[in-house]
């Protein structure tokens, strides 16, 4: 529902279906019977937020409690924002149409750094002060979770509570505490101090940060009995974990018009640039039986004709063949397409592949990430050129003609030869197409290179590395394009300034809060949308705050420097990351967890036993 006064404006905005609520499976409760009203905010537009699995899980989880009601809130697009501001309508939640400022808890998911200004903008649209210290009342409590909170320091002044790791258990514990403290009329300070005692809860205001003269962090001091290290939460058994059986089905088309079921968390691969892979260790798998049951339940309740089996590397799922064979018995009949993102096609049974693509055929994508074997060894991406070419050949023989290849530039130790290698590899794939005697008639090969730039992230072996400046990246992109000789190859690039800002905030500290606030006040938001990113405004904000953004990106850090996120513990030890960093510079690879345990340290989160070790022993 939306506020009444909005009705006459709704048809003036693009896609009004984003702002109405009332979708199938959305949850409406009787307010008078609710203790905790929770606004789950996604700091981007409806179409993007509604495609996000984490939100669906927490929405169902909170709504499964009788005492709580979770509603959804998205960032209004600029046309709608203007209407809200011009008419003094505060940001509202989609289910009730009630103002977000009156909720007990406001939870933001922070999936990418460039959504930070949207968080501020949404708080402001709600009519709340953006700074946590200026929100004096107990409620609403502003909490954040998601990938980016492994270093929430650039947002430390704006949020009350940070929840690193899996949210399924800790969300309930925080709600329980808030319910109790609200009933007892306790103060916000009392609540925050008590919350910091819950394992896996980080309260930024309870930490004092000291700085050295050179700008690096000197000390991190926990106050009021808060823990010196906050250990991320880890759900040990995915079969017993809460999993939703129905999702809200949007009226309008969203980014992913399909439903999603998770197969496992964690990753055995250890690609050295991949933050998600390290943050989500140790590996925990759902059983194929439970995964199938969830797929069926969700298809029944939503009616989607596509289901995505998601994880960081789907072909590493041990139950995959069993799951697919079981699922195909009903998905084929019901014309449901199974999408397998992050699938390595090299060792995938042909017969199964054929059946999978019998309903609808999706695109073919590889992520070699680097152009030469040397470079792939540095980043520990264990895929060889032979594997890529053989799989392409097989795909071309099966009727495909378009292949998308993901690469990264700006990697440590990168040379011109490595960049040229990207073009060479793409050319080799094109050549593979023309070698095929049964190539589809009338179609040429199409190879698309998608070129990203490395943003070194916390909790990866590259967290100490310097990031290439935008100017250097632009030169490297130009060089790559000059190496591409075939019209069959197209190159799509990321905007280096986007990666630059992302890099600043990924490894930034608390002093950036002032910059974010300034940039937002000067009109920056939706920074992840190329057309909205205001580079000059951002640079001016850094300047006004007396902060050099290149301090955070262009500087190589020493292993003994205190990092702004050192109060966080994601399981993987610093010693392991250091050894991985050294191996990278030596061009040495590390085997996957399934081949050999490398002792990353994450096993202790699961009571000392890593699933990988246990299952290989059994």
């Amino acid at each position, binding site marked *: 529902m939306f506020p009444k006064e909005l009705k006459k404006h709704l048809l003036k905005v693009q896609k009004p279906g984003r702002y109405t609520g009332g979708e199938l499976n959305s949850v409406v409760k009787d307010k008078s019977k609710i203790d905790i009203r929770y606004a789950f905010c996604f700091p981007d537009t409806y179409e993007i937020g509604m495609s996000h699995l984490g939100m669906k899980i927490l929405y169902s989880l909170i709504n499964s409690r009788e005492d709580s009601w979770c509603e959804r809130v998205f960032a209004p697009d600029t046309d709608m924002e203007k209407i809200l501001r011009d008419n003094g309508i505060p940001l509202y939640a989609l289910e009730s149409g009630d103002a977000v400022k009156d909720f007990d808890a406001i939870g933001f998911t922070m999936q990418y750094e460039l959504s930070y200004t949207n968080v501020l903008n949404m708080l402001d649209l709600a009519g709340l002060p953006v700074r946590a210290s200026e929100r004096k009342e107990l409620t609403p409590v502003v909490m954040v979770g998601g990938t980016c909170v492994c270093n929430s320091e650039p947002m430390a002044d704006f949020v009350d509570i940070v929840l690193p790791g899996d949210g399924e258990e800790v969300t309930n514990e925080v709600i329980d505490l808030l319910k109790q403290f609200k009933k007892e009329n306790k103060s916000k300070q009392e609540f925050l101090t008590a919350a910091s005692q819950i394992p896996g809860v980080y309260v930024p205001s309870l930490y004092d940060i000291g700085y050295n003269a050179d700008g690096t962090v000197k000390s991190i001091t926990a106050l009021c009995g808060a823990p010196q290290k906050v250990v991320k939460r880890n759900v040990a058994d995915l079969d017993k974990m809460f999993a939703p059986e129905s999702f809200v089905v949007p009226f309008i088309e969203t980014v992913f018009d399909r439903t999603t079921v998770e197969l496992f968390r964690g990753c055995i691969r250890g690609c050295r640039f991949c933050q998600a892979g390290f943050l989500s260790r140790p590996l925990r798998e759902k059983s194929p039986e439970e995964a199938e049951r969830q797929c069926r339940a969700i298809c029944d309740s939503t*009616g989607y004709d596509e289901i995505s089996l998601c994880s960081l590397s789907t072909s590493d799922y041990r139950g995959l063949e069993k799951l697919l064979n079981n699922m195909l018995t009903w998905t084929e009949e019901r*014309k449901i397409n199974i999408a397998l993102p992050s699938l390595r096609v090299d060792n995938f049974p042909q017969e199964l592949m054929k059946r999978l693509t019998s309903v609808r055929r999706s695109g073919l994508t590889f992520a070699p990430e680097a152009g030469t074997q040397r470079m792939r060894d540095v980043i520990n991406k264990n895929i060889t050129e032979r594997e890529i070419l053989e799989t392409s050949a097989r795909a071309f023989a099966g009727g495909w003609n378009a292949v998308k290849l993901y690469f990264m530039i700006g990697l440590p130790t990168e040379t011109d030869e490595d960049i040229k290698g990207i073009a060479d590899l793409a050319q080799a794939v094109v050549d593979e197409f023309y070698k095929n005697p049964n190539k589809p008639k009338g179609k040429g090969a199409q190879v698309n290179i998608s070129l990203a730039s490395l943003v070194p992230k916390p909790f990866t072996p590259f967290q100490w590395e310097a990031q290439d400046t935008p100017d250097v990246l632009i030169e490297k992109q130009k060089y790559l394009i000059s190496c591409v000789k075939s019209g069959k190859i197209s190159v799509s690039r990321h905007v280096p300034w986007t990666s630059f800002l992302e890099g600043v905030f990924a490894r930034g500290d608390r002093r950036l809060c002032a910059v974010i606030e300034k940039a937002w006040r000067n009109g920056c938001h939706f920074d992840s949308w190329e057309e909205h990113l205001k580079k000059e405004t951002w640079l001016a904000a850094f300047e006004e705050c007396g902060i050099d953004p290149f301090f955070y990106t262009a500087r190589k850090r020493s292993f003994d420097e205190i990092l702004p996120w050192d109060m966080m513990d994601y399981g993987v030890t610093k010693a392991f990351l250091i050894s991985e960093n050294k191996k990278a510079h030596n061009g040495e690879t590390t085997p996957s967890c399934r081949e050999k345990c490398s002792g990353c340290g994450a096993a202790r989160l699961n009571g000392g036993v890593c699933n990988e070790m246990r299952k290989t022993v059994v």
Partner: protein
Amino acid sequence: MKCARLWYKKSGMAIYTSHLDMNRCFSKAVTRADIPLWYTEGFNPHPYMTFLAPLALGQSAKREPIDIKLEDDEITFDRVKSRLNAVLPEGLEIVDVTEGRMKPGEIAKAKYKIRCFFICEADAVSFRKNALNVLNSGEMFAEKRSKRGVKTVNLCPMVSKCVITAVDSLAVVEAVLSAGNNENLNPQLFIETLAQYSESEFDDIDIIRQSLLTESGELFE
């Protein structure tokens, strides 16, 4: 295979669903209801389903037709109706399932009820008076967008009937306008142009499509 014509009602939040999204919405509903639809046999199979008279964004409707093909000859129309109603989101409801008696091409007109909310009673009354004069003059031009570009056309020939009543600050316009593939007049464009010619400004409007009619004014079935 058996053909059926579903008649649905659109109201509430569902009116903000565009024609394209309605298609998606009903495909999913049919799947949830486990109604065996006949699938197209192309590269990307999808259930056969045709909305006979697209409805513009933001307009409600009482009885709108969708043609479907059922794979199963045994299933009764009553079952189709009750199963769909059990799974449709609020604001969408199947009011009837029939065998299509007329060809889709016979749709030529539609009857609308347009409620115009004015700031005060005087505005509503003057709108009514002026609007009737405009309609009687037989000339009311507006820019109409079509596939061939923007053209200025006279809307009056596309208005077969129009009754206006004013009560307090509300004016109710009941109009029969051209609809269908040959000639179509969007009631939004009609009412906005009418208000402009009548030198009136309404605060808000509600548009409800009451029924679809044939060229001779007979109810489309």
